């Protein structure tokens, strides 16, 4: 979580310096949901993150330098300059990068999970999505198919209150948790700003999935503490709502929890900041991509690559 926030703060400052093209999108306030859920996955469980889920990439092991270079559109970035902001994925580490159309990757996650079930593999697939995405037809199709075939999938709803500027009150009449029951899908609500709580419900959802008990929808209640992107001042959010959630900041809460256990959290902060400053310098030193054949890579030649396995060096699965 500390790494997530440090990278995003650095990315935002690079954007304000005019070094990041386009806009900049972060997940400030939602770090616990992405990190807690992904941390509960095994190395063979693929994840489909969204733009608020930088932490999912980090937990799967994508290096900070490649992420910062990605923001900058450099050749050494994850997408080699082909896409920007938090549109990327490192499939060799089990991260299937998102498309902007929502919740398309939830449907893809159902397909991955379906294949695991058909092959009898002890794996599950996890897809994040937002409250706004539950209004799209693809959400219904994914929920229906997943419930019907009881595929080993975990759906993490990041209920952050707003889809761009539209509040959930203008998005749906029935809460997605209640709707999950109609698809035969177990659902649980969790405090999305408590990383350990998110980890625990996801761990249980994974156990259910691997035991053949079907998919789980986890509704993580959280708050997007910035606008949709850096161009959005979020003036449509009542200040009292921001204040309410600022008092529940996921990093502060975990820091306090760890401090009582005797963990030197200041040392963690300092180490992460030093790492990210180094990564930023490395990313800024990387070359711009060289325009070549624009058709390169449009089609696959040879054996199609498949999703690999990933775990951060500090993950409980590292080295397994």
């Amino acid at each position, binding site marked *: 979580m500390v790494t997530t926030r440090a990278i995003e703060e650095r990315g935002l400052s690079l954007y304000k310096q005019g070094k990041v093209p386009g806009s900049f999108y972060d997940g400030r306030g939602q770090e616990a949901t992405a990190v807690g859920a992904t941390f509960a996955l095994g190395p063979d469980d693929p994840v489909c993150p969204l733009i608020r889920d930088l932490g999912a990439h980090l937990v799967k092991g994508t290096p900070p330098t490649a992420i910062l270079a990605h923001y900058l559109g450099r050749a050494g970035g994850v*997408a080699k300059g082909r896409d920007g902001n938090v549109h990327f994925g490192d499939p060799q580490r089990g991260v299937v990068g998102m498309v902007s159309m929502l919740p398309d990757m939830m449907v*893809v996650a159902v397909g991955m999970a379906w294949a695991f079930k058909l092959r009898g593999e002890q794996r599950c697939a996890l897809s994040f999505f937002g409250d706004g995405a539950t209004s799209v037809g693809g959400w219904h199709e994914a929920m229906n198919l997943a419930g019907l075939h009881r595929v080993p999938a975990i759906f993490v709803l990041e209920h952050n209150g707003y889809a761009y500027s539209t509040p959930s009150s203008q998005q749906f009449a029935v809460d997605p948790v209640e709707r999950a029951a109609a698809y035969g899908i177990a659902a649980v609500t969790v405090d999305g700003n408590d990383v350990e709580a998110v980890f625990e419900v996801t761990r249980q959802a994974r156990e259910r999935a691997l035991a053949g008990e079907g998919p789980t929808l986890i509704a993580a209640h959280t708050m997007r503490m910035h606008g949709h992107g850096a161009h959005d001042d979020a003036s449509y959010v009542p200040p009292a709502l921001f204040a309410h959630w600022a008092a529940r900041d996921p990093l502060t809460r975990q820091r306090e929890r760890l401090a009582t256990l005797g963990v030197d959290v200041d040392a963690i902060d300092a180490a992460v900041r030093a790492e990210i400053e180094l990564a930023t310098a490395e990313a800024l030193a990387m070359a711009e991509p060289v325009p070549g054949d624009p058709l390169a890579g449009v089609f696959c030649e040879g054996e*199609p690559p*498949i999703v690999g396995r990933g775990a951060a060096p500090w993950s409980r699965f590292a080295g397994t």
Partner: protein
Amino acid sequence: MSELTYLEAISDALRVALAADERVLLLGEDIGAFGGAFKVTAGLQRDFGPDRVIDTPISEEAIIGGAVGAAIVGMRPICEMQFADFVACAFDQVVNVAGKLHWRIGLAAPIVIRLPCGGGVSGGPFHSGNPEAWFMHAPGLKVFAPSSAPDAKGLLLAAIADPNPVVFLEHKFLYRRVRGEVPAGTYETPQSANTVRDGDDLVVIAYGAMVHAALAAAEAIEEASVRVLDLRTLVPLDERAILDAVHDCAKVVIVDEGNYTCAAGAQVASLIAQYGFADLDGPVVRVATPDAPIPFAPVLERAALPGVQRIRDACRELLAY
């Protein structure tokens, strides 16, 4: 080698692929016990089981998006849209997820999307479509459109073996009307054009069912020697074969069953205009379905689709140029 209909050739390709490779899955609506709306998958669920020949809910987006998911973890899904027109319901998954996947993140989506397409069967405006041009315009998709039984089997097997998503247009009008000698077992038809009738006064360029209309038109023109070039695949488009045919014949008629504007034939015409101009002895002529939905009543449908007579008349007019 045995004589099979176009439909039987497609069924045979599916059976061969299911038997040869346990990664192959069939997904679609009513394809199991019922055998599909056109019986292309008849008997396959019985022989390969419900986990490999899978009846899905009416969820085109989930069929194709789910297939992409299964493909990126190593499966080889083949999706059936009950009619080509219904692929519109899944357009986003085809063009934004499957088509851009390799360029974007280096994964690949080796899926086949089977589209029973085309008119001539009184299907009306929602069961007669020829949506190939939509997918030619979207990066990362291959588009195959066979006209004969052996090509239908060989191109479907090529599509299944291809590491990219392939939109496979199988023409409903040809299902039971066209038959041919089809080799047994596995073979792949090249992803290139094929000269199906020799001639050097004029070339008709067509694909799918229009190849047969073009052949009938060519037969009717006794006063000249008319070549027919069957494109077979639209992506990749065999540009060399097109330009060679124009070089040899100097006059060209391009036939689409798709709607006229921005059709596959428009791309062929553009290619010839830019790179074959010096070989031309007359305007590049196109025959296509007007930019209107396909009507239901047989008399109206016949008037809308480019039949033998319109192709023959277009050829005669150009020959006289």
